[in-house]
């Protein structure tokens, strides 16, 4: 048994099991929707302010009442959670650093190029984040999101929208739609697959 037991794989499986309810995808979708709103209005949309406050409260409420009574609850290993946050932070920092470094290493750079290349930078950020999450926790659908992200960015870059912002806005709206629909579909599948046990497991058992 001990030889066949792959602890890393079990760690990933525990994480996957805890995130099979689609809530993570819905949160990602709302984040993308907020970014689209930000690009559209040029003001900080109310969603972007409310999200950090009400997002975790909402997710906790749903999970406490619908997810955990069905499948139980496991807190992922701190090491793994810390590593994911740290790698994503470093990755975003490097991409942003490159965005600001490009003008200095290129001889014929002007501000309009910065503007033109922004879909590519957004795409690198989201695609990289999805690829890393897919690799780290072994959830296949994150690879599909990464592929869709590349397609979306290419579409935003090549399709002639009225303005570049409109292209980006459509990209984030599209991604938001995909994530939210996937999240709700996963949630309904989860509810159907894991019926609430008639005999509740409580501390009194």
């Amino acid at each position, binding site marked *: 048994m001990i030889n066949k037991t792959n*602890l890393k794989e079990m760690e990933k499986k525990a994480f996957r099991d805890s995130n099979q309810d689609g809530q993570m995808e819905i949160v990602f979708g709302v984040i993308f929707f907020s970014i689209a709103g930000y690009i559209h209005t040029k003001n900080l949309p109310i969603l972007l302010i409310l999200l950090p406050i009400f997002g975790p409260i909402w997710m906790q409420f749903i999970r406490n009442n619908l997810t955990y009574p069905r*499948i139980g609850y*496991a807190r992922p290993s701190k090491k793994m959670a810390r590593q994911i946050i740290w790698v994503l932070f470093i990755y975003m920092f490097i991409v942003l650093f490159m965005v600001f470094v490009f003008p200095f290493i290129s001889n014929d750079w002007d501000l309009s190029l910065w503007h033109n290349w922004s879909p590519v930078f957004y795409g690198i950020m989201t695609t990289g984040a999805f690829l890393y999450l897919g690799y780290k926790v072994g959830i296949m659908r994150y690879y599909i999101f990464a592929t869709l992200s590349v397609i979306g960015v290419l579409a935003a870059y090549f399709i002639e929208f009225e303005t570049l912002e409109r292209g980006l806005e459509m990209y984030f709206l599209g991604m938001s739609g995909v994530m939210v629909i996937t999240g709700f579909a996963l949630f309904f599948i989860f509810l159907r697959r894991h019926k609430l046990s008639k005999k509740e497991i409580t501390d009194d058992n």
Partner: protein
Amino acid sequence: MITKKNKTSSDIQNITSVDKLIHEPARLNIMVHLYVVESADFLFMMRRTGLTFGNLSAHMSKLENAGYIEIIKEFVGKKPHTMLKLTEQGRQAFEEYRKKMKQFFDDMPS
């Protein structure tokens, strides 16, 4: 000089020194599943290990008495909620067990 015969007998002695509390299949199952998470509740452990509530409770008590597991009582809303967590001692014991078993199987002639 260590002869092949001496080495084999030392390997066998090595296997006899494994932690028997962990070596029991149901408890090993519990230890493995708790090792890969920070903490987990009873329902999660029952689903993952396939043990019944009573069986799981009995093994948990043994592991708790040995200091390998910590039982944390929390409240989720107004409901009491029990979380199970591997202690540092439990983590070390499991790593030691794993090392010994791996060593034993690696040294076993094929």
